[in-house]
């Protein structure tokens, strides 16, 4: 067997096994997107209710002077929460996030702020470590399946440093928003000082006049941290769904490319095989002719 033929057979074999792996990854990611989407759906009622409750308190109290809602006059430092994935194999997912985070950092530095990164996900952690950048919060191990406890942990750290005297004055979050299976966008948002977002159109008429137990201030005190936790939980869930969608897409195109390669290599291999057979036949014919000629010469 010719050397070229053997080489092609080996390449086809290796590409085939790669295709098997990427295909499996694609299928796993597809099934996990569904689960991630269900979790996003399951979190919607709580988000809606807590947003409603926060706007109810804010509409009932004329002068809100809560530390979490007041912007400092001279902000000096900004915290940036960057949500990346734990594993790669997801196309440009992490690269996009980190690029946006860099752009945000440039923007904040332009405003004269010092930027402190808080990073979620192993990919983001290694990216920062490789560049020996200091991180002020590091979390990993849950990027594809975050729980509310994870969000709470992150929110606690962020709120604590926001409240601290020499802590951070603003908190931004960079994550990937899940629009659909095909579209995911990097979203950059400021979460502190707080701006409450109404998910739906504000209800008609005057908001009801609430009584508070025990007082409006106390309710706000415990409501606002929960609201921030819920925002972060939402960011984690959307990032998880986006991660799976990005991985599915990347693995699908990898499988397609592998199949295309196999097709091309098989063609080349067949060509090589035929060339070899043709050559062998002409050698045999040539040899037979030479023998016949030699025999004819003797007579």
């Amino acid at each position: 067997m010719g050397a070229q033929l053997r080489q092609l057979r080996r390449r086809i074999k290796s590409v085939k096994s790669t295709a098997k792996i990427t295909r499996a990854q694609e299928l796993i990611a597809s099934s996990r997107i569904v689960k991630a989407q269900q979790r996003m759906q399951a979190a919607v009622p709580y988000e809606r209710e807590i947003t409603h409750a926060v706007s109810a308190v804010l509409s009932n109290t004329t002068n809100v002077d809560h530390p979490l809602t007041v912007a400092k006059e001279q902000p000096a430092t900004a915290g940036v929460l960057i949500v990346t994935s734990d594993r790669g194999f997801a196309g440009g997912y992490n690269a996009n996030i980190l690029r946006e985070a860099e752009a945000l950092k440039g923007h904040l530095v332009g405003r004269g702020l010092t930027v402190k990164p808080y990073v979620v996900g192993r990919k983001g952690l290694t990216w920062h470590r490789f560049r020996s950048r200091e991180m002020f919060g590091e979390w990993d191990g849950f990027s594809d399946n975050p729980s509310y406890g994870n969000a709470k942990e992150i929110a606690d750290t962020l709120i604590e440093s926001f409240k601290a005297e020499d802590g951070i004055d603003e908190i931004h979050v960079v994550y990937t928003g899940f629009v659909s299976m095909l579209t995911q966008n990097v979203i950059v948002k400021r979460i502190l000082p707080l701006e409450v977002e109404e998910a739906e159109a504000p209800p008609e008429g005057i908001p009801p006049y609430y009584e508070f137990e025990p007082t409006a201030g106390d309710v706000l005190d415990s409501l606002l941290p929960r609201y921030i936790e819920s925002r972060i939980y939402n960011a984690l869930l959307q990032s998880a769904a986006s991660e799976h969608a990005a991985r599915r897409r990347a693995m699908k195109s990898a499988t397609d490319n592998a199949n295309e390669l196999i097709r091309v290599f098989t063609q080349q291999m067949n060509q090589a095989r035929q060339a070899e057979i043709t050559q062998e036949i002409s050698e045999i014919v040539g040899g037979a002719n030479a023998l016949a000629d030699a025999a004819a010469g003797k007579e």
Partner: protein
Amino acid sequence: MAKLRVGVVSPEREIWTGEADMVIAKTVDGEIGIMPNHAPVLGVLVEGGVLRVKRGDGGDLVAAVHGGFISVADNDVSILAEAAELGSEVDVARAKDALQRAQASIEADHEDADARLKAKRAAARLRAAGEEV
């Protein structure tokens, strides 16, 4: 008589929704009973409280609610719990076990706030399941 529309939600899922005649919850100020046409209220719930939803014919719904809020407006009652569990879903043996372990660590260290919280939560789960604590 008008009915209350009740929703019990936690960050990770919607636990129960339905109609009821009366809702009893425990806020930091004490127990609060909500009946139809109640004035709008927003209250902070205690850690390890028990929520009762009286449904007239359908029997009562009991749930252990750990922290969170109750919000009432226009006969809509929302219970936003950090964590909640229906009484029927409580694993009694596990809750008892958790309570005993928490009490043991309180015995060992009276300042152990974490164990106190765990004991409260376990007790609430047992009460919601209809056990005497």
